[in-house]
């Protein structure tokens, strides 16, 4: 309990410092997510349409996922230096695989008979994509976005290693100075943020899932 009280005191002591860290963390997350969607959703669509190259690309990307987040950040450092931009690029790259893989799987998962039926009723290829295939793939796509977001929220903490003051700063500071209250401020806020993302996107996922038989 003392620990909790100390943690609250630490936040109260300089609310502006805490607010800025939350803001940076959220900003970094949202920007990375935005770029990842912009890049990897269309890429996933392309990949899903290629019978041969598609599966190969997807497995390559899946294999890339074993590279730890921290390693990506450190790999970026000599290339791009310190600051918001390299952190953003690293996080965007990190969010890519779950999005790409789920977009591909979701679109491929729509039965051929359903798509043929869409054509049979007189839909053009683009009508069949936007009115049938994409909506039916949405649950899988949103699930991919959800895991990507949670991953970004968690990994944004590591941005403090490239000198971006996210909530991760409190964790690093807490660990290096042995101050558990500060560590708790960081860890708890990151967890809450991740939970929030999980909750929101989980809701979105249910929203786009049609009732099952």
């Amino acid at each position, binding site marked *: 309990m003392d620990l909790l009280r100390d943690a609250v005191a630490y936040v109260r002591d300089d609310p502006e410092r805490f607010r800025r860290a939350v803001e940076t963390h959220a900003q970094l997350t949202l920007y990375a997510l935005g770029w990842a969607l912009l890049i990897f959703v269309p890429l996933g669509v392309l990949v899903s349409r290629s019978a041969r190259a598609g599966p190969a690309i997807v497995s390559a990307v899946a294999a890339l996922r074993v590279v730890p987040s921290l390693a990506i950040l450190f790999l970026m450092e000599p290339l791009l230096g310190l600051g918001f931009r390299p952190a953003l690029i690293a996080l965007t790259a990190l969010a890519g695989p779950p999005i790409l893989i789920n977009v591909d799987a979701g679109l491929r998962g729509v*039965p051929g*008979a*359903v798509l*043929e*039926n*869409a*054509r*049979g*009723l*007189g*839909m*053009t290829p683009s*009508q069949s994509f936007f009115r*049938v295939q994409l*909506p*039916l793939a*949405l649950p899988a796509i949103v699930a991919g976005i959800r895991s990507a977001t949670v991953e970004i929220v968690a990994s944004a903490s590591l941005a403090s290693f490239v000198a971006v003051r996210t909530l991760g700063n409190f964790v690093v500071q807490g660990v290096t100075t042995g101050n558990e209250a500060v560590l708790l401020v960081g860890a708890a806020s990151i967890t809450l943020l991740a939970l929030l993302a999980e909750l929101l996107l989980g809701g979105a996922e249910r929203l786009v899932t*049609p*009732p*099952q*038989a």
Partner: protein
Amino acid sequence: MATRTGAAESHANGAGRAAGGSAIDYVGVSKDFGGGGRSAVSEITLSVAPGRFVVLIGPSGCGKTTLLKMTNRLYEPTAGRITIDGTEVHSLPAPALRRQIGYVIQQTGLFPHMRIGDNIAVVPRLLRWDKARVAHRVDELLDLVGLPPAEYRHRFPAQLSGGQQQRVGLARALAAEPSTLLMDEPFGALDAITRTRLQGELQRIHRRFGQTIIFVTHDIDEAVRLADEIVVMRDGLVVQHGPPLEVVTTPADAFVAELVGADDVLRRLSLLPVGSAMRPLDRANGATGAALPAGPTVTRSAALRDALGTLLESHEDHLTVVDEDARPIGTIDLETIQAVSGRAATGAEGVSPHADVLRA
């Protein structure tokens, strides 16, 4: 077909209007999927007159689906020509062509993410009908297929039974009042009772609107019950094309004979509806709505076997055949039934018994 549409049904708002049917002609149509095997469809030439209900039947892989899908260009023929009302199907962009043709397939036909109303509205929306007209049409169609709109409009397909889903599939195909319906085993996955009921509904709709229907099935009972004409296919070829009575009583070869169970008299009698063998009433007589003659009646969709039973039981020399609205449309007696049941014993002899019956 126009004569089938009663004046009482033709009120102004769409549902009562006879859409009429298109003439569909296949000339030397072939489809080769490559890969060295025989063609899925080999030089089929087939004429379907406007408003006919044509049933394609034959063993799995004989090319029924392929022929159907070439009609709305889901498949492109390797050779030959398909015309609808004289217009070659290739002269239109494929989506425009398909919007004029109703298409119903087995199961999976409905879009699971769209509510029932939206599923039915697919083609009208593609055709850019205005909102009010679409909404009106959706309700009209739900009524037509026996699903109360208020209750079903907002449901999702998964919230309907298989039979109800198939009704919606039919409603969706009818949405833009197509003059042609292509149906690929639409009732194949349903239980026998539901299937019979839906067959009745489809017949009712066909009588009312007179579309040309090409219907694929595996089930000879279904074929005989529904068809004006049966097309028997095997190995990509048409082996027989004729009215149900002819196919059942005069199978073209041993293959067709086996398909229809021709060596079994009772089987044949239970297959054929009374309407296919009756002596039609004199048209003038029927049109003036002559009073129902006294004596036993039988509906035209009942099996000949039942008619035979009723006839023997009643000790009358004939039965009056009535349509679904109990209007007399013909008579049937022992002689007409014998003409049908005796035929198979003599086998394929090349004379159309249908013609016999009509002459009698």
